[in-house]
């Protein structure tokens, strides 16, 4: 059914002016821009870089984001945090599910991009499918992890006491270099499922999917600035990602001991939380877990007195 519609729409041009000479038509190239505050600006620096695939083919001219882009993205993420955290958990789940729907709808484009970035068709399809399923996995967790990780604490005094997870705030993420779509989705989803906002640095060598994913986000119901995606070089941006005083946590996914050490040292600036995902195979079951949501949650404990008027104990 779908196919037949496509066919007919191809054969009949809307205005009837189909040109037989269209085989020479110049392809429209996509401009890969970054995603800050729900907008698609170019980097303020005006710089770009041109990643190439294994065959040496230029992928695109991609923004080489600067520390100022990161700064702007953090400002956007901070301003979006309160409202996103305040959304009903159910609503966050709906939005994550919507993201999965939109991703499903643009599956072909992602597969195409992954293949441009050296994946086989089979592997590309697998990665996109898993990425969609991962969003759905976390969509389901949005209104459940709290129940799993909260406690009501039986204190000895006449107080009601409970502990609940709360989002940390703004999370800076250096996404996995390989698995440029699945890795990206796998690190973003638990962070936003838990009510945080984030600034993500996409894979340097394979950035195409990240920008397209930003378009998916933009066309889903996710409020602008909850996820901000930059492209560029970790070697340049890493220190800024962990130095910033208004970032509450940093996620790093490579097994690079020099960088790990640097991140830990610099995190002391404001004692931001550091999360390392360097040993995770995103294709495995370990690539998804409610414990990943908890990695960017704080536990808040609340106390309140329980009135206990003498003589009212007979109520049982």
């Amino acid at each position, binding site marked *: 059914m779908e196919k037949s519609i496509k066919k007919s729409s191809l054969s009949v041009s809307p205005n009837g002016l189909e040109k037989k000479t269209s085989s020479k038509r110049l392809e429209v190239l996509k401009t890969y821009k970054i995603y800050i505050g729900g907008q698609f600006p170019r980097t303020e620096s005006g710089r770009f870089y041109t990643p190439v695939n294994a065959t040496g083919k230029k992928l695109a001219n991609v923004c080489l984001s600067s520390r100022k882009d990161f700064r702007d993205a953090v400002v956007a993420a901070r301003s979006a945090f309160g409202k996103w955290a305040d959304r009903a958990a159910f609503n966050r789940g709906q939005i994550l599910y919507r993201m999965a729907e939109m991703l499903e709808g643009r599956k072909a484009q992602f597969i195409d991009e992954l293949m441009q970035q050296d994946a086989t068709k089979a592997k590309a399809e697998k990665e996109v499918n898993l990425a969609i399923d991962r969003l759905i996995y976390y969509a389901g967790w949005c209104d459940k992890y709290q129940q799993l990780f909260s406690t009501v604490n039986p204190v000895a005094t*006449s107080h009601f006491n409970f502990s609940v997870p709360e989002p940390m705030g703004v999370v800076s993420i250096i996404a996995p270099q390989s698995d440029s779509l699945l890795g990206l989705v796998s690190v973003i989803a638990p962070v936003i499922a838990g009510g945080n906002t984030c600034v993500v640095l996409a894979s340097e060598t394979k950035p195409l999917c990240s920008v397209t994913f930003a378009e998916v986000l933009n066309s889903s119901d996710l409020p602008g600035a909850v996820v901000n995606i930059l492209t560029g070089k970790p070697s340049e941006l890493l220190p800024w990602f962990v130095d910033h005083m208004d970032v509450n946590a940093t996620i790093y996914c490579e097994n690079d001991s020099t960088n790990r050490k640097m991140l830990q040292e610099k995190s002391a600036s404001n004692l931001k939380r550091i999360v390392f995902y360097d040993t995770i195979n995103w294709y495995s079951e370990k690539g998804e877990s409610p414990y990943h949501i908890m990695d960017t949650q704080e536990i808040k404990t609340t106390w309140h*007195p329980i*009135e206990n*008027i*003498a003589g009212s104990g007979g109520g049982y």
Partner: protein
Amino acid sequence: MAVARSKTIVSDFSLSPHIDQVGVEERASRFTKRSIKKESKLNGLLLTLNMIDLTTLEGKDTDGKVKQLCYKAMHPYDAIQGLPTVAAVCVYPSMVKVAKKALDGSGIKVASVATAFPSGQAPRDVKIRDTKYAVANGADEVDMVISRGKFHAGEYNFVFDEIASIKEACGEARLKVILETGELGTYDKVRRASDIAMHAGADFIKTSTGKIQPAATMPVTLVMLEAIREFYYKTGKMIGMKPAGGISKSKLALHYLVMLKETLGEDWMNNHWFRFGASSLANDVLMQIVKEKTGLYQAANYFSVD
């Protein structure tokens, strides 16, 4: 003293401050952590003795019983020289005359319960006559009960007006208003009733009749002391406090004194502004005083039961 006029002190008593039960009980228990030893214990006991309203409020009260109680009030324990007397003797209106005569010249006050004590379930004119009768027979102080039923029904103006009219009937006698906190249920209501009583003209607010359990407790008394403090800061008028019922041991009485000292301070640390409504407390205080003086633990048989 001018009669309180409700028109000039219009106050919405449902807006009385709220009390957190757990918090006020924590604070009250903190007073019990004070360790009262040596001379401060002795001085505290003497002060306590001097603050007692020695009480007999029984159907079987007779002239003879009241006279014996009055003798005890004046001579708590003659074996020790220089002991203070108690503050007052508290009786039913019918016994005021007997008590007044027995206490003549001692400086000990005669307090009379009135207003259809202890339930207060009587028409207002009966309560007024009850009060006037007690005063006419020589009562220096009148201990009235509020209409708890009306209070629970939210008829605060009724309660207020009733107190004001009893105050008027008291004339020169000082009016103690019994809230019967054991029937009020919550500290919020204790605070509200205290505010009504003070604004309506009470000279004292008092916890209980002694006929209902629980009677006085430390947290209830603390809520009332804090109400007194706030009223004082608002109006400049001092109000007395009388916890009554359930205070039979010296140690507990000393805890009350600690609470009084740390809540209202020096000006209230005398029997003009603070009373213990109790009957068995006096003997325990006396036993402790003798223990402090002799170093020997005492037995009840050495102290007269009146």
